[in-house]
């Protein structure tokens, strides 16, 4: 717009050359006033209506010699008046989705691999937001009346399924999704939650995801996403988070914030071989962007408002570095007293950072995490950014962890029944809590457990047992709140939400639930029935703990979406393992056999019982008599003839012959009658 204004001023000045000088001055004054007014007015409108896009990449060395790369793309569409408006940057498909299904908030994640909470951390915003269960996880909050939520959810799953080339439409069935009340998110009204644990994630899901970015993967940070190197990683989670903001009035459509993140954990191939360390196992591999992705950053996406690469050193690492530094300083010279992290001799960055931020820690711990910012704007094709980190001495540190480490496993054998156990083990953090809170006895750790179990796992909720420090405790003592909606066969899954109150000084806690395995109809088994069925991951969260990072105040930081994400108070949560339950299978090749055999048994029952009932005494006796008569007709007549001959007496006539002859006469008469009727019929009607 400013450009246009400039052009008009040029035109005006050209025309003004013809006018007298006095007039000129007046006109110029007027124009300037007008321009100023208009620019102010326009500018305000523009600020409000601007669609923004920003791209960021966070790199972080992990304690187990791996590197975390976290891409964060954020598109914002402000609230707008018109309905079918065209978007400049914001993906139209998503805005249509939001409008059509009135989505208030939604999150979809495709994940492969498992986030290792012990090694990669469980207490920072990245892990609590981006560590997801394997497969697809989708949850959405709708802004529609309670009765229409399910219909909206079903439509949404189909739309997303088409959009992301994934079988999200399987979440349409009411057996796969649930409506958690409070355990999943604290204020969830019209929330629906569903997971597909066995969904395979591949490039076909990434490509449509990239299509939502204004530069796709042609320019900017997303150009780093070399498919082989991304999918080679240990963990890969592609996430899409939607939030509708702004007014809820009828005329103005709500604004939308689309947050797309890709979190990968990669193993860098160490490319420094010259130096030999004392302890090879502890040595951190040196890496650079080009070594882990195979590409370099060739400048920013032109449409992006900001484009930055960050390198984060987390708390534990910084503390360790400081210690190392102190030792070095004591032994050698004391010249490096400054707090500048750039001057640490233990590592070396290939590019000088533009800015360094330090976390403002509200928890009084000895060290804070450090963030180096590299702005991509300075770099271009001829001068690409290739950030590298070279370690000079071996470092060992550990990540900050959630209060408890949760794991879930199955117990029992056989295909009839079993038990699900959730085992909670304290980590360093809760041990620290124990020490700090040793004074007041009433220290409690609140743990929120949310678990969805498919209907064919028939959980007996009355068998819930809680063990604290390996001793059975009454459920009421430990449970603060529990909500169970038991599964209905072929209709809905079982949902269990509960808040546990655990004592701080606990050594271990375990939950135990027994279940029976269901038997399905042959059509309900998936093609690979013998592989087993997955129970989605349970979610363990800690309502008293929030992961947030605040960095030293700086004007530029407010604008960075990643930083504002870091500053948000996010619930510390962790997903447990997905359980694989083998279910008994029937013989899939048997339907016809089973139908025929069962029906035969029924026929046997019906026929034989009816036969017994039908037999009349008289009939039977007549039958027996005629049988006897027939027997005498053959054998006994012979015998009697023989005996008569032997005795030399004339044979007595059989009494039965008359009866049999009359019977045969009747029979012949009947046969003749029937044949006569048949002949007549044939003659007249044939």
């Amino acid at each position: 717009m400013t450009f246009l204004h400039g052009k008009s001023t040029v035109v005006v000045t050209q025309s003004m050359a013809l006018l007298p000088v006095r007039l000129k001055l007046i006109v110029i004054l007027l124009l300037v006033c007008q321009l100023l007014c208009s620019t102010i007015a326009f500018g305000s409108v523009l600020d409000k209506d601007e669609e923004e896009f920003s791209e960021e990449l966070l790199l972080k060395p992990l304690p187990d010699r791996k590197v975390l790369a976290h891409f964060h793309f954020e598109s914002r569409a402000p609230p707008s008046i018109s309905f079918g408006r065209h978007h400049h940057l914001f993906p139209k498909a998503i805005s249509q989705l939001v409008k059509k299904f009135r989505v208030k908030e939604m999150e979809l994640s495709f994940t492969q691999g498992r986030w290792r909470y012990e090694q990669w951390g469980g207490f920072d915003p990245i892990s609590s937001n981006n560590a997801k269960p394997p497969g697809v996880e989708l949850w959405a909050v709708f802004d529609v009346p309670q009765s229409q939520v399910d219909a909206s959810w079903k439509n949404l799953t189909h739309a997303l399924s088409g959009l992301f080339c994934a079988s999200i439409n399987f979440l349409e069935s009411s057996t796969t999704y649930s409506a958690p009340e409070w355990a999943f998110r604290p204020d969830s009204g019209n929330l629906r939650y569903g997971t597909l644990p066995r969904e395979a994630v591949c490039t076909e899901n990434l490509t449509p995801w990239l299509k939502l970015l204004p530069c796709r993967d042609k320019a900017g940070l997303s150009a780093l996403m070399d498919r082989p190197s991304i999918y080679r990683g240990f963990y890969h989670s592609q996430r899409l988070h939607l939030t509708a903001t702004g007014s809820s009035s009828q005329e103005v459509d709500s604004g939308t914030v689309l947050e797309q993140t890709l979190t990968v954990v990669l193993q860098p191939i160490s490319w420094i071989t010259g130096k030999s360390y004392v302890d090879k196992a502890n040595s951190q591999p040196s890496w650079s962007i080009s070594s882990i992705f195979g590409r370099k950053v060739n400048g920013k996406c032109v449409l992006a408002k900001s484009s930055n690469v960050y390198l984060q050193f987390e708390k534990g690492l910084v503390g360790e570095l400081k210690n190392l530094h102190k030792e070095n300083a004591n032994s050698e010279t004391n010249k490096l007293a400054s707090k500048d992290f750039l001057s640490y001799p233990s590592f070396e960055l290939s590019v000088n950072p533009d800015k360094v931020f330090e976390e403002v820690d509200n928890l009084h711990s000895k060290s804070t995490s450090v963030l180096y910012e590299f702005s991509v704007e300075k770099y271009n094709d001829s001068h690409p950014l290739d950030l590298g980190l070279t370690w000079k001495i071996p470092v060992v540190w550990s990540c900050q962890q959630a209060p408890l480490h949760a794991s879930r496993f199955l117990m029992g054998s056989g295909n009839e029944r079993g038990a699900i156990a959730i085992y909670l083990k304290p980590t360093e953090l809760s041990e620290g809590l124990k020490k700090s809170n040793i004074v007041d006895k009433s220290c409690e750790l609140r743990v929120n457990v949310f678990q969805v179990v498919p209907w064919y796992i028939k959980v007996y909720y009355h068998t819930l047992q809680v063990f604290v420090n390996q001793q059975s405790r009454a459920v009421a003592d430990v449970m603060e709140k529990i909500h169970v909606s038991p599964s209905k066969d072929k209709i809905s899954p079982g949902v269990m939400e509960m808040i546990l109150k655990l004592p701080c000084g606990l050594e271990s806690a375990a939950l135990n639930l027994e279940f029976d395995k269901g038997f399905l109809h042959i059509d309900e088994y998936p093609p690979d029935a013998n592989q087993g069925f997955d129970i989605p991951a349970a979610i363990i969260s800690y309502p008293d703990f929030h992961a947030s990072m605040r960095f030293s105040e700086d004007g530029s930081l407010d604008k960075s979406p990643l930083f504002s994400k870091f500053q948000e108070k996010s619930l510390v949560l962790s997903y447990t393992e997905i359980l694989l339950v083998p279910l008994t299978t029937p013989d899939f090749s048997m339907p016809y056999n089973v139908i025929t055999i069962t029906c035969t048994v029924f026929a046997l029952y019906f026929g034989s019982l009816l036969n017994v009932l039908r037999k009349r005494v008289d009939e039977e006796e007549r039958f027996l008599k005629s049988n006897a008569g027939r027997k005498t007709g053959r054998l006994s007549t012979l015998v009697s003839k023989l005996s008569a001959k032997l005795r030399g007496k004339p044979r007595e006539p059989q009494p039965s012959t008359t009866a049999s002859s009359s019977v045969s006469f009747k029979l012949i008469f009947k046969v003749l009658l029937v044949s006569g009727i048949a002949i007549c019929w044939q003659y007249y009607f044939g």
Partner: protein
Amino acid sequence: MESKKEENRKKTSSFWVWAIASVIFRLILIYFPKNLNLSSRPEVSTPLTSLRRLAEGYWLKQSSMSPYAGSMYHGSPLLLSLLGPLTVKRMEGQPNHLLCSLLFVLADVVSAVLIRATGRKLQTAYSRSLKLLQLDSLSKSSENLSSGDVAALVYLWNPFTIVACVGLSTSPIENLAIILSLYGACTRLPSLAAFGWVVATHLSLYPAILIIPLIFLLGYGPDAPPRKLFVQRRNGKDGDNPSSGSSCLQEELFNQSKPPLTFSWKPVVQFLFWASVWSVYVLALCSLSVKQKGGLREMFKSTFGFILTVEDLSPNMGVLWYFFAEVFDFFRNFFSIVFHMNILFMIFPLAIRLNHRPCFLAFVYITISSLLKSYPSVGDSALYLGLLGLFVFELADMQFSFFLFCGYIGVSLLSPVMHNLWIWRGTGNANFYYATAMAFACFQIVLVVESASAMLNHDRKLRKLSVAKP
């Protein structure tokens, strides 16, 4: 006479010794529930009778949810309020569900006592009617052996009954209700018979068809030889010489004991009245207990609906589970109608043919329904095998009895083996277990057919004897 009384006393005492021995045997078994693990056997506890599911339903009810909220509990809400509190109470150092087990043992003992009383009633009535027909030789041979004692002991010592009682299934209570109704009808107590019938129907639906034998029992009195014989005899007597002294006595006897000839409507009407009263009462109680959550409609849907639609496909002794696991979905309704019609189809032929023997008719009905019901268990078999003992005299000439005995033993040994192979070891497959279920069904069919034909043959024999006698 003295020696006979003495003998009777001896018999009674030996009966009680055996009964007490069976109770002690049960109590011993109850103390090792973990080792036996009977409660999880599919033959013992079906989705309808499993006490574990009842405990789950009670838990749901306690946590202010409908007991039918999950697809776990499918029994009666009354049973829930009766047995539910017992499932929660635990005594230190005692096995779980001890109180429930004791209740089931009690139910078994009461059933046995009622069977014995029913048997005695039947026997006295039968010997009287035989005397009427002047077939004293038969009645004497029947008096030597008390069929009530035999039936009660068969019921108490039948491994099926013991397993059903110790294995924490609610079938002893269902059986008790059925036996109660039969006893009530035999002793001509319409209210008791109606109560038993209503409760049994409420608990497991299939006893509803017992209304026909119950009405016959109340109308005609207990089992007797075919009524035709009495008529013939009376006519014959009238024609012979009405002035003879012995025949006068007979005549008096005839006049005294009218029941076998005429249908008395009064007890039947009373029975129907009481049945309606009890059913209203039971429904009112049910609606009270499920009022807040779902109401009666949900109750019927998840009890009777669950029975009729065969929703649970877990393996059991019946023939329907595998069929419905395999059959194509669009035939499902058709076949579930056909299979249940099979029970209904046989009601009227049997009722017409065996109307003079209502107790035996009830036995046949119970056998058929336990053969064709959607979730059969050994408890049902225990009931009809116990009732079979009531007719030990009439069915003395039954064919294939040894074959059936061996078959029952073989199936009850093979079925757990096949189940183990399929479910636990994974070396067998579903067809193995299904084959034993089929075999069991065949044996049951042979039992029904042979017992019915033996009973009809017995009638024929009686007829021949009475015709042969002047």
